[in-house]
């Protein structure tokens, strides 16, 4: 198919799709006038029912925790996929890798920044049910800490911290742990993924019940997944740079 034909097919389709979408969204309730009951009901119930201050985290890990389990598994599948795809064509010897960063100041500041970010990540995860935050957000910040290490201290330092042989089990542990917690609740006679621990007091660190454990499991899965993906791409990068892969 020539480019001209493709563009003709596409443009005609685009006009129709645009009309369809505009017709659809113009019948939505006006912006700012959200009327649906779901959000209001949850916002009203989240404190008395679950003693959680953060309604979003409550929805993510408690009310719709099963969806979150599915999405952890999506991340797990994607990270395993990247590992599966990129591992096939390279060798892992990095002993003669020449690294470009020579500034000690950069390395030092980078390490310090990574440590601070790491602590921040833990704080974001731990306070998920009280302030904006939670397993995802904290997990992403954690993987940002790893990325900082790579950017300022190059590949070998990163590899010591978050190599794929470390990240892969952590990530599987996080994803599997989530499913396991669901089945555990089932085994204990509750519903699957039901929040069965005491809810604590709203606003205190120990609120959240068993959803708090699921929260940590999710943080593990997300940070492990990202670390694994970074690790695989970085190894690929190293291998290509040293001509050990491809044509």
């Amino acid at each position, binding site marked *: 198919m020539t480019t001209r034909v493709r*563009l003709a097919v596409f443009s005609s389709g*685009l006009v129709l799709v645009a009309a369809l979408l505009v017709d659809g969204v113009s019948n939505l309730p006006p912006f700012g006038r959200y009327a649906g009951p*779901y959000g*209001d009901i949850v916002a009203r119930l989240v404190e008395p029912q679950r003693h959680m201050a953060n309604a979003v985290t409550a929805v993510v890990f408690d009310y719709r925790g099963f*969806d979150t389990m599915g999405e952890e598994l999506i991340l797990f599948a994607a990270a395993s996929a990247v590992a599966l795809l*990129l591992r096939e064509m390279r060798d892992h010897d990095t002993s003669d890798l020449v690294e470009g960063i020579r500034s000690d100041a950069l390395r030092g500041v980078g390490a310090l920044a990574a440590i601070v970010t790491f602590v921040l990540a833990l704080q974001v995860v731990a306070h998920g049910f009280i302030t904006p935050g939670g397993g995802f957000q904290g997990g992403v910040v954690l993987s940002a800490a790893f990325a900082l290490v790579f950017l300022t201290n190059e590949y070998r330092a990163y590899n010591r911290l978050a190599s794929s042989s470390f990240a892969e089990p952590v990530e599987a542990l996080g994803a599997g742990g989530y499913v396991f917690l669901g089945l555990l609740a089932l085994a204990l006679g509750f519903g699957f993924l039901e929040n069965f621990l005491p809810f604590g007091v709203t606003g205190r660190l120990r609120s959240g019940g068993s959803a708090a454990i699921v929260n940590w499991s999710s943080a593990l899965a997300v940070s492990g997944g990202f670390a694994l993906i970074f690790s695989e*791409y970085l190894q690929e990068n190293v291998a290509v740079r040293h001509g050990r892969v491809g044509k």
Partner: protein
Amino acid sequence: MTILPYLLAVWIFLVGLVGIVTSRNLIHLTVCVSICQSATYILLLAIGYKSHGTAPVFADIPTSRKVVDPVVQSLTLTDIVVAVAVSALLLALALKVFEAEGSLDPAEIAELKG
């Protein structure tokens, strides 16, 4: 105009589609796919917005205060994770295609046809 945010979402989606169809580089194509995905975030979050509503975190505000919809925010979080997963996968595929073919142009690597 009260539907402008929704139209913005539609616009971004269409722009992403244009990018995909006219792309000459698989990595550019992957980014266009994630642009289309961003449109869905905007649509979801715009639907959940309440005028004069604040973030649905009751740490320092009374429960009676008007807040925006927490459910769409949870849906968007899920959506973002899906986008990350798909992007990571597409980039890995693009990398391997480049290693095997030496090109990232969809027109040049099209060997499966008929």
